[in-house]
């Protein structure tokens, strides 16, 4: 019983991290980030490949996306080309990923310390997250949630397909962050699971502080409520979107690196993990961070228990969990009229 709960909480903590990232991105950009799961697998599998001394293909993806973003920048600014602007875009979109690329090739090897591998994976995925926003969502920022959602699905399909190209169909595991273990009563806590708990709590607190108490956090929230209004008071809405995607991809990659030592990940595992994060996020109403975190723990525990008692129907149970929640939500707060278009 207890170890089921422990298992559930470890998984739940990961779902909580992803749920938080989803809430964050939705709150700022109105994008329902289906490819969040790909950030997880990209982070995890890049880390696992680096650990074996190989250079993951994701570096090249970051490079290619950067170049495409640069092209898009040039195209958008074609009527007012100024050298300073071009140089800035060049530095941000081409030089930066090129530097990451060079760094990865320089550092990658069988003897690279774990910390360096982690840092490299995070850098790569963060860059992909940034350029993903630039390429797929920034041009659509003014459109409806539906259009953004479908674009998001397109990104998911493309990234998942690319995942197969980069990492192959075989599952990978990565080395643990620490081999320490702690025994309390009947339970054994590995260093890995403690790291999962610690980072989750740290992120929740950090996000709460960031959005509640910093100017940048408030600006991000303002962007979510009213893009035009935010622009009028001088908030750079594009920057808000970039920050949201940067944070989301980082959180995704961290979650991936945290779980890849515990479970084998495949190129397409991310989608399901991400969706469970979604369920938590939906239960949290896509707005509340603490509620999302609690919901994620519930999802994780339900999953652990149902995989023990009714393993065949594990996914069915987890995904139908959402229906009573949605019903409660719709009863508690009937649809509010939205002014659209």
């Amino acid at each position: 019983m207890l170890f089921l709960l422990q298992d559930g909480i470890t998984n739940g903590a990961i779902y909580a991290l992803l749920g938080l990232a989803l809430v964050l991105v939705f709150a700022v950009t109105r994008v329902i980030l289906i490819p969040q799961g790909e950030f997880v697998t990209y982070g995890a599998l890049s880390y696992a490949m680096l650990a074996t001394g190989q250079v993951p293909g994701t570096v090249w993806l970051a490079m290619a996306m950067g170049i495409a973003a640069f092209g898009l920048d040039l195209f958008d600014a074609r009527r007012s080309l100024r050298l300073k602007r071009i140089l800035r875009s060049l530095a941000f979109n081409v030089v930066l990923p090129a530097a990451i690329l060079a760094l990865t090739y320089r550092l990658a090897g069988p003897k690279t310390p774990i910390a360096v591998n982690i840092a490299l994976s995070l850098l790569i995925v963060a860059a992909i997250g940034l350029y993903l926003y630039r390429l797929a969502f920034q041009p659509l920022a003014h459109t409806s949630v539906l259009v953004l959602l479908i674009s998001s699905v397109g990104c998911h399909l493309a990234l998942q397909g690319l995942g197969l190209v980069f990492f192959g169909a075989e599952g990978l595991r990565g080395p643990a962050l620490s081999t320490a273990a702690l025994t309390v009563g009947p339970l054994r806590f590995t260093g890995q699971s403690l790291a999962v708990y610690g980072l989750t709590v740290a992120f929740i607190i950090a996000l709460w502080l960031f959005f509640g108490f910093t100017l940048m956090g408030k600006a991000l929230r303002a962007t979510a409520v009213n893009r035009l209004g935010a622009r009028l008071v001088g908030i750079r809405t594009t920057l808000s979107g970039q920050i949201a995607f940067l944070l989301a991809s980082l959180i995704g990659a961290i979650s991936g690196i945290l779980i890849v030592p515990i479970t084998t990940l495949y190129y397409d595992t991310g989608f399901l993990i991400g969706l469970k994060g979604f369920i938590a996020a939906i239960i949290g109403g896509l707005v509340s961070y603490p509620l999302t975190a609690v919901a994620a723990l519930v999802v994780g525990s339900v999953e652990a228990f149902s995989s023990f008692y009714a393993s065949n129907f594990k996914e069915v149970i987890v995904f139908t969990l959402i229906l009573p929640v949605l019903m409660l939500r719709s009863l508690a707060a009937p649809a509010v009229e939205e002014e659209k278009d």
Partner: protein
Amino acid sequence: MKQRTPLIIFAALMAAIPFIPGLPPFWIVLLNNIGLAALVAMGLVLLTGVGGLTSFGQAAFCGFGAYTTAVLTTAYGVSPWLTLPLSLLVSGIAAVLLGILTVRLSGHYLPLGTIAWGIGLFYLFSKLEFLGRNDGISGIPPLSIGNFRMLDPGAIYFAIWIAVLISALLTMNLLDSRTGRAIRALRRGHIAGEAFGVQTPRAKLLVFIYAAVLAGLSGWLYAHFQRAANPTPFGAQAGIEYLFIAVVGGAGYVWGGVLGAGIVVILKEILQSYLPYVFGGQSQLETIVFGILLVVLLQLAPTGVWPWLMSRLPIKPARKTPDASLPLAAPIREKASSGALLQIEKARKQFGGVIAVNDVSFNVGAREIVALIGPNGAGKSTTFNLITGVLTTTGGSISVLGHKVDNAPPQEVVKLGVSRTFQHVKLVPDMTVLENVAIGAHLRGSSGAISSMFRLDRADEAKLLAEAARQIERVGLGEQIDQLAGSLSLGQQRIVEIARALCVDPLLLLLDEPAAGLRHMEKQRLAALLRQLRDGGMSVLLVEHDMGFVMDLADRVVVLDFGTKIAEGTPNQIKTNPDVIKAYLGATA
């Protein structure tokens, strides 16, 4: 009959294709797949494009249709034709259950909810013993008529495309009807429709079921075409793809669904067969290209290919002008029990700590024009919303003809003969003026969804449109009757709203800033119209900022300031009232 010509040409074309000599049989398979996808996409057009409800879970409804017939025909030997109604019924019932849970959700919850149950059902299909788990069910008998068994793709081709054409026809009939207008108004929010008696949740559930039944039909055909059913084609991926098809084709157009199905199925086929040659044997490459194409396409044409294509065609469909002489029976209403037409007693509305309407009382009698004025934020529109049931009161009572209406839903208030316009125009911009105005007559028609699909509603429909045309003529917009409401100026849109409200044949007309955005001459015409309505026996309560217009027109004026009534009287009394002057011009004026 002119509107049908393209359809007949299309049907003849599709019927001729299999007889082209030398046509590779593979093309027929492809066309079958297009037809199957088009059926699902058509449902999504109605659900998402027209109704504004996004569903990623349509593939699961195909699954219900396919598995129902698979189980019944293989395990119990039931004839495929008998399983057709059962398949549709099972998908329909599933839709009712899921719909009741999810349709009330607004905005992004619905798509997320549908993703979740789409995946949940996929796992259910693949785990249940009697559905054959991951292997599914094979050996499903083909469709047959007498001794003719539809074994090869060329035979079932006709069954599939007849289903597509009939569904398209029924869907278009449905959209062009009383129920259809209610569905088309859904996407713009529920307040406007409800103010004219539309039961929004019921309309939403209806499109949800309709879309699910179409998907179930597609699943049933699929099962007898493939002669097997397994979980893969009914998973989340497929659900996403259907939505993609609808968006690519043009989510607001029935034929957009068919076109989108054609584009996507053929594109996927090309990608699947040629990409491996270009890039070597890597699998899933088509997914990558597919995903990227999706993102690019959305940026280039967010409304889809069909409307883009149509706008390039020189032919415009001819519209029938309604015969304005057809009479529409006056609505049957409850008799007045007592007192004034509208009686407001200490109505109160609090939003948290803010008191928007503070114990306001006033009456509107028969044949009277009453103006409700006051500075911005005085609570005028809130008062309107209380009267019409959009908001519920915190205290006090509101009655129409002696019947208490406070906290009655808007659909009940309009039945008593109270109709309204909105401060922020709430028309459906992509519907014509005529169609928009006809929503006003919603309660005066009775045809339901089924009768309109089969065109049994035409007599009823003609009367509704005749009434709408008369009211449009009455407000002086006869020339704009066939224009899209969104293309009119804001002032004209307000007048359209008045025509729509008049279609209720109201006893009391509530007008929220009707003169805003009108030019001088138009205002005079509006004033004349309102006087004429009053002399015909109607009462008018209006909110307006144009003082000249108000003082000239109103029999009585009620002044609100910060939610409180500060004065009431004839225009002349109000003009000289010191409190009113203070509220408008400040203390020292």
